[in-house]
């Protein structure tokens, strides 16, 4: 069965995120002053052929560990979207 999985990859909370900072500056220029912080990450979707939801989750976790996220600077969250 094909399982659709989404992986959210975000810069570690303690790290400066210059992209988020630039976007925040843009929002301020638009007059949206109530926005206090912006952080920009990646949203990756995978279609995984697996025997069970658990297997699919395990494979997704593997992709994140081995390639999609770098633990030195990022953390990730996995969610099933079937």
């Amino acid at each position, binding site marked *: 069965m094909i399982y659709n999985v989404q992986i959210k990859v975000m810069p570690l909370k303690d790290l400066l995120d210059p992209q988020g900072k630039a976007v925040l500056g843009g929002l301020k220029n638009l007059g949206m002053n109530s926005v206090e912080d912006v952080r920009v990450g990646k949203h990756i979707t995978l279609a995984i052929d697996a025997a069970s939801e658990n297997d699919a989750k395990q494979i997704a976790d593997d992709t994140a560990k081995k390639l*999609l996220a770098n633990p030195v*600077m990022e953390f990730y969250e996995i969610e099933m979207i079937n």
Partner: protein
Amino acid sequence: MKYGVVVFPGSNCDRDMQDALQNDLGKEVVMLWHKDKDIRMFTTNDCIVLPGGFSYGDYLRCGAIARFSPMMQSVIDFANKGGKVLGVCNGFQILCESHLLPGALLQNANQQFICKNVFIKNDTSTALKIPIAHGEGRYYADEVTLNDLEKNNQIIFHYCDETGKIDMTANPNGAVRNIAGIRNKEGNVFGMMPHPERATSKALNNIDGLKVFQLLELN
């Protein structure tokens, strides 16, 4: 010492590196295509260089996809056997992604791509003028790793001012502890953001890059 220069799709400093090594350092250079694997022509006394550029379009993260290219598997084996490896700019990013060097290179703190001459030094040198050209050059590692790097003398270059003073005003990209380049514990893998190959010719009015190769004993 013979040199290999790896060419990834998106490398753009590979020919500069070849020219500097061949014509300014007088070395034999073999260009290595990323899809090939064969590096039997090299012994561990030789040096493989990962040049600057934007390998695989910098997709996902700088250097993340280059790490899995066939040639990199051979380079990782070569490094683990004690062969010398130098990564410049994108090459440094690839070495970090490959876990041959600790830490990571993050987007510059000032949100800009920076292309200019800066000064760097190591413990024994005076300030050397070397160009940088990167958007993601802010070296980062956790405190434990940084303390280890310092304790083992693994920081090969700090950003400094013209007089050799190391402080935040001389730090172009926000790198932790002004780190411009590091080596591994064993001392055979080197990574640095500045481009020594762009400063090896009198025609360019700057030969400080030659001193970088000398300091790393890669000349």
